[in-house]
């Protein structure tokens, strides 16, 4: 895969803090991201792994402009999108798309597949009415769904099909960067394999860049070129997948590897 010299995404010292009221009534500060920096080359996949609460989802929200970072910069194709106004951001948004873990929450259950797919096309306003339907069919084909799904409601689709639909909707805007926030975690194992294959194929064909946020190390190992291990809002270890997983240097990485369930694990003594 041809890669440009300049990374398509570069995050510098990203910090995100929240104010929260605890049950005693006083407000406390929650540091979700404590200064995260990394870069992703175009056409590659960076996996961000970590346990719950490590801040990986917050990272996804900040990069996709769903949240404003407290401080830090996010360089996308050479522009710092963290400091843009909402108006300027509107042009960037189609290029960064987010796929969530639970597609049933991000797909409107009252709409049909066709309307769900057409919505981004209509908002973008580039195509005429006649051109939109064939494009929707083409999008479905790209993700392996047949065109007779157009009239179905998302509630009638399986988990795997819904996730494919979510991907198709994201592709409608021709994004350059796809952020997958635990996008495979809620699916059955055999379906995860199907969607993983689909993602790899799309990356080959369309040259997309993926930010793969997950706690499934095995899938990260399979899909990612580089891997970043997060812990409590910071990146503890980062590098090419093979290297990080085969020769981990940080304690947290070793722990994640040890805790990973795998088929060929014999009975282990209980963790203490």
């Amino acid at each position, binding site marked *: 895969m041809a890669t440009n010299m300049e990374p398509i995404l570069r995050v510098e010292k990203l910090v995100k803090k929240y104010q929260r009221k605890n*049950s005693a009534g006083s407000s406390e500060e929650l540091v979700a991201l404590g200064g995260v920096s990394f870069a992703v080359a175009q056409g590659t996949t960076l996996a961000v792994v970590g*346990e*719950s*609460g490590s801040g990986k989802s917050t990272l996804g929200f900040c990069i996709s402009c769903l949240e404003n970072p407290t401080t830090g910069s996010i360089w996308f194709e050479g522009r710092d999108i963290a400091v843009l106004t909402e108006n300027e951001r509107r042009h960037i948004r189609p290029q960064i798309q987010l796929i969530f873990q639970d597609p049933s929450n991000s797909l409107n259950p009252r709409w049909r597949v066709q309307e769900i797919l057409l919505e981004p096309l209509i908002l973008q306003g580039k195509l005429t009415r006649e051109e939109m339907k064939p494009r929707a069919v083409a999008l479905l084909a790209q993700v392996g769904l047949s065109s007779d799904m157009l009239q179905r409601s998302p509630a*009638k*689709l*399986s*988990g*795997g*099909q819904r996730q494919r639909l979510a991907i198709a909707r994201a592709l409608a805007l021709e994004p350059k960067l796809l952020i997958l926030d635990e996008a495979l975690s*809620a699916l*059955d*194992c*055999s*379906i*995860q*394999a*199907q969607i*993983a*294959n689909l993602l*790899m194929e799309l990356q080959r064909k369309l040259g997309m860049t993926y930010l793969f946020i997950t*706690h*499934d*190390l*095995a*899938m990260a*190992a*399979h*899909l*990612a*070129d580089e891997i970043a291990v997060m812990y409590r809002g910071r990146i503890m270890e980062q590098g090419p*997948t*093979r290297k990080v*997983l*085969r020769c981990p240097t940080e304690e947290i990485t070793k*722990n*994640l*590897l040890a*805790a*990973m*369930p*795998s*088929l*060929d*694990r*014999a*009975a*282990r003594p*209980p*963790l203490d």
Partner: protein
Amino acid sequence: MVPILEVQDLHVSYNSSGGAPYSALAGVSFQLMPKEILGVLGESGSGKSTLATSLLRLLPSNGNISSGTAFFEGKDLLQASVGELEQIRGKRISLVYQEPSVALHPTIRAGRQVLHVLAAHESERKSTLVRKRRQVLSSLFPEDVDRISNSYPHQLSGGQRQRVLIAQAIACGPSLLIADEPTSSLDPATQMEILDVFRTLRDELGLAMIFITHNPALLAGFADRVLVLYGGRIAELGPAGTILSLPRHPYAKALFQSMPAISGDKTNNGKKLPVITGDSSSAPLPRQGCVFEPRCPERMEDCRKREPAAVNLSESHTVFCFKYGG
């Protein structure tokens, strides 16, 4: 040894508005020995959740158990009255539900919810119940018992909520625990912790367990026997070690092959995963013949004509596939 649970020929279906009833389980039979962990492996549409809820008769209003028996402590659960069932649920057989984030009441404190279970089954004085509750919670939360007990579910982490659910389940000392995907929304490290909790419960309290999951990797080194469920029917049933390392049924084989693994020195980076084509949870099951036949990479002539019968590969290992006879 007498099995603690004996299920014979269980058939469960759901009525759908304006259509034929949907068969969720057909002809499921198995036994469970005391102190045994049986892992039920199934994906969406396999009927695994139906198995959990039908044993305790917690099916939704459109579900019905058309035939079969489930003997537990001398009583057929499927024929028991509601009063008898209320005595069994939570007291002799407990169900640990999936999704701990929604299985707890959102505005009642965690400790209170455990107390409710105790109060439902034991008619002792409140102070005794409070003591018992403390005992149960301490066994699951060695530190921090009071804080957890006084917290509301939304103040607890996923793993903590799951432990509260488990506390509710074991509070009255049941002999059988049915856990339906108890770890699916937790991260791997917490998943391992919860599995350890279950293992400890089996070792210390002598609990038998039915552990339902869609992830075979969780059953490795944990379950004693594995039952593979597909399309409401048993595909394979046998010792965990055997099935997980050398599955016989084409479905099990294909399933394990499609999982990425960091094994040994080779990371499978960049290559396509071998997948089972199609999707079982949305497509209707075939009317005749083996339910897996449409997607089976090893299908034969007979597979479309009739359903395979049980083939005993050994005394403890059974498979339902024409490749081995049947």
